[in-house]
């Protein structure tokens, strides 16, 4: 279940991060990449339910923390998509996974030379816009007026904290400028295929066993990139 794995750090060194895994040395081994930021919390329960379903269908699966994620002790403010991509590539090696299941913004991190499934990938700009908007609304509630363009400028120059996430300038720039397109070898799983309603929109965290079963079924029974 829970153990640690050696994970590369932004400074070039190695650290230790937690991993949740169902490992019985079976043929199909899936690396699960969770969403970033707020959606990581909102979907954690659902992801773990999906992994339990995969496990019960004879599929090994691994959900590693990367620096700044979940239980990680590493600071968040010097992380970047580029660095997390290095971490994901290392996780593929460490766990000898055969395919990837990426969820929402986790899709931005998939290795181009691997295969797998992309569950409802958003655009980086859309996630950033949402975080900026949440900050402006919460400032307004507190009686302060903030302006998107000024927050963006600060973000580019020295980073900015949005929704409790201290985004460094590198990560901020990546969110502003990167586009996302599914690499070859990956199948996109849209919400309509799973039924139910999108859990990342829920104001209160929730999970849905029917959706977990549907997603696990796709991963367990089909080949990636089909």
């Amino acid at each position, binding site marked *: 279940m829970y153990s640690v794995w050696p994970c590369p750090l932004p400074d070039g060194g190695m650290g230790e991060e937690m991993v949740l895994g169902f490992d019985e040395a079976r043929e199909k081994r899936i690396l699960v990449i969770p969403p970033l930021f*707020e959606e990581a919390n909102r979907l954690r329960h659902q992801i773990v339910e999906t992994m339990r379903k995969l496990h019960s269908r004879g599929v090994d699966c691994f959900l590693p923390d990367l620096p700044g994620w979940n239980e990680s002790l590493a600071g968040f403010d010097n992380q970047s998509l580029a660095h997390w991509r290095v971490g994901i590539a290392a996780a593929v090696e460490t766990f000898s996974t055969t395919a990837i299941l990426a969820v929402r913004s986790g899709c931005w991190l998939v290795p181009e030379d691997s295969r797998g499934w992309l569950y409802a990938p958003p655009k980086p700009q*859309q996630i950033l*816009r*949402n*975080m900026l*908007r*949440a900050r*402006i*609304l*919460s400032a*307004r*509630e507190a009686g302060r007026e903030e*302006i*998107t363009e000024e927050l963006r400028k600060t973000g580019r120059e020295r980073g900015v904290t949005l*929704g409790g996430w201290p985004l460094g300038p590198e990560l901020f720039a990546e969110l502003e400028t990167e586009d996302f397109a599914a690499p070859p070898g990956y199948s996109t799983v849209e919400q309509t295929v799973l039924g139910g*309603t*999108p859990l990342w*929109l*829920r*104001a*209160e965290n*929730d999970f849905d066993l029917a959706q977990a079963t549907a997603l696990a079924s796709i991963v367990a029974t089909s080949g990636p990139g089909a």
Partner: protein
Amino acid sequence: MIAETAQAEPTGPSRSDIDQTLRAILRDVLGLDQDQVDSFTGDTGLFGHLPELDSMAVAGLLTEMEDRLDIVIEDDDVDGEMLENFGGLLAFAEAKVIEG
């Protein structure tokens, strides 16, 4: 009872489409059943009445409206009045769709 006829806009969703889309977004954000959101009236209170609608949830609601209704919502557009009740949000969305 006379059924309301949808006023189709040549370039955008009809009024009843906007109404249905908004209900669907609120269903998804608030985790309600379709029956519950179908019973919303113009007076049904939103922000300030529903504790789960915090600023993060409102941000998600607005971003989802932009996506599903193909509109752009500026910071200055967002005020207490539009979020006060379902009728206010619907009127705002309709105005944005026409403007777009």
